[in-house]
């Protein structure tokens, strides 16, 4: 099993790093980044809305990779990572699904618009919420781990297809990413970095907290 001490070290390292970068990012978003001319201040939701989307794709990809490793190697330590990846991914998907409609309300006056990118994330949320349901239903028995891993794999492969279908189906297009001034680009880069680090700290922390990880005395 994975060495708990090593994990704890990584988790704390990334958490401290995440704390500082996120504070910096928030300061930059509210005080450094210029307000965008057409959309007004609400455009600043962009600095966390998009990074959260990227972080959830990243975490879900990690779950995909470790699910394959678990099925091939049949070693439970991979399953711990697959579960952690999907769970952390779900947290960031929720962030996207919260910040998206708020931005939509400001931009189009309606809480939910079935536009392509948000609808894609809604379906990804359904897929990975079902993944968590499989875990909840089956608790810890070995068959459930296999069911979850297989589902994580086909769920991940489904995402690009969902994406294509949604884009062709949808009529309203997502607000085109407006050309960013240099300060905006810098702010976006910092906030993206901070969110990725935050997701990694959650990942390591979630794995170290999994009951299957034994303390190496």
């Amino acid at each position: 099993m994975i060495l708990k001490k090593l994990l704890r070290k990584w988790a704390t390292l990334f958490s401290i790093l995440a704390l500082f970068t996120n504070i910096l990012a928030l300061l930059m978003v509210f005080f450094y980044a210029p307000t965008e001319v057409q959309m007004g201040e609400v455009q600043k939701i962009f600095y966390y809305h998009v990074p959260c989307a990227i972080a959830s794709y990243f975490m879900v990809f990690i779950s995909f990779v470790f699910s394959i490793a678990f099925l091939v190697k049949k070693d439970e330590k991979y399953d711990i990572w697959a579960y952690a990846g999907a769970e952390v991914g779900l947290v960031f998907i929720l962030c996207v699904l919260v910040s998206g409609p708020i931005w939509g309300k400001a931009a189009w006056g309606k809480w939910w618009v079935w536009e392509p990118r948000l609808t894609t994330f809604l379906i990804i949320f359904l897929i990975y919420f079902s993944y968590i349901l499989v875990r909840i239903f089956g608790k810890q028995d070995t068959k459930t781990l296999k069911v979850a891993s297989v589902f994580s794999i086909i769920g991940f492969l489904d995402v690009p297809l969902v994406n294509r279908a949604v884009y062709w189906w949808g009529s309203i297009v997502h607000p085109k990413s407006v050309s960013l001034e240099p300060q905006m680009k810098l702010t976006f880069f910092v906030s993206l970095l901070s969110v990725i680090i935050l997701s990694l700290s959650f990942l390591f922390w979630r794995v170290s907290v999994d009951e299957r990880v034994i303390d190496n005395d």
Partner: protein
Amino acid sequence: MNFLKVIFFVFIKDIKDELRRKENILSSLFFQLLSLVLIHFAVDMTSIDLSKEGAGLMWLIIIFAGTIFMQNIFRKEEENGVFLALLLAPVDRAAIYLAKFFVSFIFLTILEVFLFFLSFFFFGAAVFDSPLQLLILAIGVNVGFSALGTLISSLLINQKGSSILYPLLLYPLLFPLFAAAAALTQSTLKSSLAFSDPWLRLIILFDIIFLAVSSMLFESAVEE
């Protein structure tokens, strides 16, 4: 044991069992009629216009009816633990999956033909304007639907809460397939089914990916 022969033997056994058991096929066929009547009262619908929302409605009924059938495709293997006997035999497990896939595929197509006839009879759906187009579209959809339906059904053998989990796991994955099916049904009435149509290519891509991936995953999914 030669791959194709195994598929054939398991397929024949399943068809014989399904026809003798009758519960799965009859309940899904009956469900379709039941849904049409329910929808008639729910939305006071007297005619189905396939070129508009009627198409989506039809595919929705097919999703639910197909679920009733495919959810129980491994029920006969759950009785007396026969699934273990299949794993014991010196056969390639992908062959077992593909046999079950063909059974789902055949019965799903029967369900669809029956539904198209029902909707024509009760709601005057313009099914016979381009029956061949619809059949080709149905076959395309059924391949993807059966591939995933059979895999998830095998995943949930002897699992607690499998009847609740089955639709929850299956439906989010089917979204691209049924979006394409609804869109194409509307367009097949006007113009013929062109291969260049992106929706059709999406269906074919969906089928290929999930048929291939499922038969690989079936092996590791069922091993203890």
